């Protein structure tokens, strides 16, 4: 299994404020040394909360954003595709479905209208929509159907890898189930690699082979879904998994966690999580490295 795409020690910084001469005075540190590799036919989950850098990661993977330092490996030409979070904004309201779905094709090669419409009809069928809906416009579809259209568009360029950026977080749980089923079926049929970016623990656990947990632009824990979720080693992963409300566990009596996410303008020295960490102790003031245990289970914590 060769890597379809990978990142090597990628950093991304944005200018946030400039002085009157245009010199950057404040920077946002969106990614702080991220390395990942996605193998063909496999699914990598990126799990994290807002501000962890997962959207920036998607932009780097798709080539929309060059890394400030570090390297993107793998052949990206025309073989990477994307499905975005918000099905309302990801489809151009003024285009008929057949143009939306075939956009990745006609952008590069002028193709006859009939050929494009036929292709669109096939793709719609492929994602479980009626092929005779090619002339409709996005507003005529429900949220779940629009997300199917977005998936059809992602497939049209015959990609090896699809970045799924929170593909179901705008959907109801019953519709989310439809979309996840569709994606799994497509992967089995076409041998696609996926990178699923999500804040939803349950979705990642269900959908992915491997997971990378991100916090403040760093991967704090990485490994196969089974090991990471069965035996979370990083205190942040534990906090996150513990915070997910569960059905049938009875009334909650939680101790209050009053901490706040640090700003990414000036990064903390030492471990990024130490100010919120229940296990913080001596040694946490030093920067932590992502180091390995058995079976490729990596953790960025000296106390793990």
């Amino acid at each position, binding site marked *: 299994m060769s890597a379809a795409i990978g990142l090597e020690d990628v950093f991304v910084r944005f200018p946030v*404020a400039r*002085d009157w001469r245009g010199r950057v005075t404040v920077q946002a540190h969106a990614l702080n040394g991220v390395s990942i590799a996605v193998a063909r036919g496999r699914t990598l989950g990126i799990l994290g909360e807002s501000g962890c850098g997962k959207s920036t990661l998607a932009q780097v993977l798709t080539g929309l954003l060059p890394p400030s330092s570090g390297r993107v490996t793998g052949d990206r030409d025309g073989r990477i595709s994307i499905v975005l979070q918000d099905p309302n904004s990801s489809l151009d309201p003024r285009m008929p479905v057949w143009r939306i779905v075939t956009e990745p094709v006609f952008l590069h090669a002028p193709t006859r209208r009939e050929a494009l419409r036929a292709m669109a009809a096939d793709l719609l069928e492929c994602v479980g929509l009626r092929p005779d809906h090619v002339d409709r416009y996005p507003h005529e579809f429900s949220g779940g159907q629009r997300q199917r259209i977005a998936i059809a568009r992602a497939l049209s360029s015959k990609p090896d890898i699809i970045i799924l950026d929170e593909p179901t977080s705008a959907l109801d749980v019953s519709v989310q189930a439809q979309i996840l089923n569709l994606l799994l079926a497509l992967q089995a049929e076409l041998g696609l690699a996926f990178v699923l970016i999500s804040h939803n623990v349950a979705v990642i656990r269900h959908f992915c082979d491997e997971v990378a947990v991100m916090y403040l632009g760093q991967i704090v824990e990485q490994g196969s879904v089974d090991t990471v979720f069965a035996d979370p080693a990083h205190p942040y992963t534990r906090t996150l998994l513990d915070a997910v409300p569960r059905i049938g566990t009875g009334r909650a009596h939680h101790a209050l966690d009053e901490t706040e996410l640090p700003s990414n303008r000036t990064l903390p020295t030492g471990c990024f999580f130490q100010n919120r960490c229940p296990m913080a102790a001596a040694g946490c003031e030093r920067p932590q490295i992502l180091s390995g245990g058995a079976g490729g289970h990596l953790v960025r914590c000296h106390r793990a």
Partner: protein
Amino acid sequence: MSIVGMLRRRLLFLVLVVFGVTLITFAVSHLIPGDPARLLAGDRASDELVAHMRLKLGLDRPLYVQYARYMAGLLQGDLGTSIRTGRPVAEDIVAYFPATLELVLTALTMAVLVGVPLGVASAVWRNGWIDQIARTFAAIGISTPAFWLGLLLLVLFYGWLGWFPGGGRLPTGMAPPPPVTGMYVLDAVLNLEWGTARAALRHLVLPAVCLGFVHVGVIARQIRSAMLDQLSEDYIRTARAAGLSRSRVILGHALPNAAIPSVTVLGLAFGDLLYGAVLTETIFAWPGMGAYVVNSIQALDFPAVMGFTVVVSMAYVLVNLAVDVTYMLLDPRIKEVG
């Protein structure tokens, strides 16, 4: 960005604007059909006299030298000499400016006092009868040619009814009040010359109404749109759910927030107001900068037109700078972001 940072940036920009405006106008002036030297010397002047004039004005030099001279003068506040009046343009402008300011300020005040309540009512009772009336009124205001309205006002209130004088700032023969601000009504009041104040006010009414009327519509429209934006915001719902009264929510929460973007529009309207002043002054024989520039244009008095353009552009940039500073002071969110 801090306020100081913005000020620095904008003052740099002011220099750029003056440079750009003078450059454009100067370059274009080369195409001017008339010969300023001949105009100044008069129709029957000898060729020698014209040549002498040309030498004196520096018109024989290459254009870039003329431009450099002009800019050097500008730095010292010298805008050249008017061909028509024979006096320094800067002096002329200083002399005519207060009259225009008096007119513009009065008109703007009237427009705000009528336009803001109209816009608020229009937004609050959206699509109701008051909204329809207010919008129609705004459309009429925006569509009225100021010069034509001025003529109608003259016919009606001067020609037929005789309620107001037909032009000028004071009756012929009446001495202006001792200058403090240069605005007659204010100066007369400051000097307790009530008769003069009354007369000056009577002269001010028609031009100010003419100029202000057009801007009632502009302001009402802006306030309506900004109010609609604010009224659809979530925080309005929070305020209502917290049991604050309707009037409190509208006037205490929505209106101040709607005023913030409206301030910017007011700054931009300053330019239109000046243009309106040019036409209004022409009609009411109001001795301000507008009348001055129209006369200068007709006399092909290029230094005067140029001086007027430069001064007005600078004033415009400064007014908008002041507006932006106000904006930053009013809206706490601006300080944070770049």
